[in-house]
């Protein structure tokens, strides 16, 4: 009985990993044989970024059960922390992969710490209030970075919140974070392969966390806070744990994002409210608490506007119609039955047998 249950989880997780790996292999083959447009090729890294963001937000929204609208803020922290490190160490660490890995770790840790610090006061709130406050914190993070000036010279790192002149750099100085102009000249270390590896790491962390003692505690808080407390589960600890891990993973996505661009700025478009909402849309459409769904919807909803580019004027119209249709029908009982009949799992099994 118990072995059966564990196996079911393991099997379910393996299918999720399998989908990612198969998608990676297919894309690699297409890239190598040249069957892929340069437009799509440019989208591959952002796709990985969005998938990681969607999966990590699902940890907060679906597993912890709290609505967070500040996810882009944590991504922003990770992006700038990682990019800053890479720019700072560009001459010191020559091996780009090593430098990038350290940048990812630094980005994830700093976003995790910011998540922890914000989570402490914010997670006392529930529901709409929590959503509003996380939204505000997301904007605050973005705005702080917009007025932040950091430079380095022979005497070390200089900070300022006023302008780049007040950094007081010596002649050999270099302004790394230049206020609203952000960071320019970040090494383009992000590749599709690293993106996929990061997706796998995210999946391992999230899926293994869910199916462990801590995950059970987190989900019990989601299902019934009062009952969870009555059986001795430390509410604050587990809420913070889920929130910080989710923030750290978003930070990781941020590092990937920043190393795909030569100039990184904190604009409302990439780290603002719209971004947070877009990630939330991925999560909601993929099914709240459904990790695999998050991956698929992030991919579809990122590709869709690009693929519809030919229809120029109508593409946002089609996009929104598809969104509405999916929301209406994604969870209708008849469609669920239909999906069960022709489920991905079955299809995959069949293709697996053919091979």
């Amino acid at each position, binding site marked *: *009985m*118990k072995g*059966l*249950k*564990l196996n*079911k989880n393991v099997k379910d997780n393996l299918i999720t990993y399998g989908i990612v790996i198969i998608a990676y292999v297919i894309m690699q083959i297409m890239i190598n044989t040249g069957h892929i447009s340069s437009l799509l090729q440019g989208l591959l890294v952002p796709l990985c970024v969005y998938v990681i963001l969607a999966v990590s937000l699902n940890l907060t929204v679906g597993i912890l059960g709290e609505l967070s609208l500040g996810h882009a803020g944590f991504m922003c922290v990770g992006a700038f922390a990682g990019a800053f490190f890479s720019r700072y160490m560009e001459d010191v660490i020559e091996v780009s992969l090593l430098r990038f890995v350290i940048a990812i770790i630094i980005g994830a840790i700093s976003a995790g710490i910011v998540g922890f610090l914000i989570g402490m006061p914010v997670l006392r709130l529930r529901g709409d209030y929590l959503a509003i406050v996380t939204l505000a914190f997301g904007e605050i993070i973005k705005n702080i970075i917009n007025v932040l000036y950091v430079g380095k010279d022979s005497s070390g790192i200089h900070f300022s919140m006023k302008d780049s002149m007040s950094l007081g750099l010596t002649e050999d100085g270099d302004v790394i974070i230049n206020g609203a102009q952000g960071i320019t000249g970040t090494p383009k270390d992000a590749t599709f392969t690293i993106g996929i590896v990061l997706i796998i790491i995210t999946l*391992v*962390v999230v899926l*293994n*966390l869910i199916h*462990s*003692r*801590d*995950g*059970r*505690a987190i*989900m*019990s808080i*989601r*299902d*019934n806070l*009062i*009952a*969870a*407390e*009555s*059986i*001795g*589960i*430390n*509410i604050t600890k587990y809420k913070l*744990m889920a929130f910080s891990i989710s923030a750290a993973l978003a930070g990781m996505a941020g590092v990937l994002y920043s190393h795909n661009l030569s100039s990184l700025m904190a604009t409302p478009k990439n780290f603002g409210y719209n971004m947070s909402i877009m990630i939330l849309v991925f999560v909601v459409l993929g099914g709240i*608490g459904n990790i695999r769904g998050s991956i698929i919807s992030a991919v579809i909803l990122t590709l869709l506007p690009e693929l519809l580019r030919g229809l120029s004027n109508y593409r946002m119209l089609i996009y929104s119609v598809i969104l509405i249709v999916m929301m209406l029908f994604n969870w209708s009982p008849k469609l669920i039955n239909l999906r069960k009949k022709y489920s991905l799992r079955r299809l995959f099994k069949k293709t697996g047998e053919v091979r």
Partner: protein
Amino acid sequence: MAALLEVKNLGISFGGLRAVDDFEVTIKKGQLYGLIGPNGAGKTTVFNLLTGVYKPSEGIITLDGVNITGLKTIEINKAGIARTFQNIRLFKELSVIDNVKAGLHNHYKYSTFEGILRLPGFFKIEEAMTEKAMELLKVFELENEADYLAANLPYGKQRKLEIARALATDPKLLLLDEPAAGMNPNETMELMNTIRFVRDNFDMTILLIEHDMKLVSGICEELTVLNFGRILAQGATGTVLNDPQVITAYLGE
């Protein structure tokens, strides 16, 4: 037998409302104790005071010689009080066995790290947890539904699962808030047997709130009757139920 729970002069006010006033009770180890009274008498408030959901305005609660007055719910659970709820509070989106495993949370530990990296400790302890949880589920004849979602269980079994989850925290004192509410006579009979079984096999002390007089007179050894937040009568079940005051206030002629 030594006293397990001693409550002295317990009281709480909500604004001008005196919800519980001068509540006193002494429950011995291994006793099956009943708390009855009309609706709104303050029974559930007493439970909430005992489990730290509300902080008492005055009074002292002692569990097994330890003063637990004013502690947080988590700490009180660790000290040894577990409860069920009047309106069932299960973890509905978790499976039946995971509900019980959540109850085992503080007794089987491995670090987050071990969980995420799937180190040997994870497998060893998860297996021990599963074993223990199945053992508990068997007591409540839920072993065949272990993989069901808790929300999909029939009502009577949900009540049982809630008791199983409370027992998983390995308490000294078990508080049952209207365990027979909404059950038919057959289910109630079955529940009475289960409660007795739990008391005997787990060496449990049980304090229960109940409106079903058959259940109360059937299994409770002693009773306290509450009315308007005050104790109306206290003592052995037979004596209390024949008290004329209790009959007028609660049972009816």
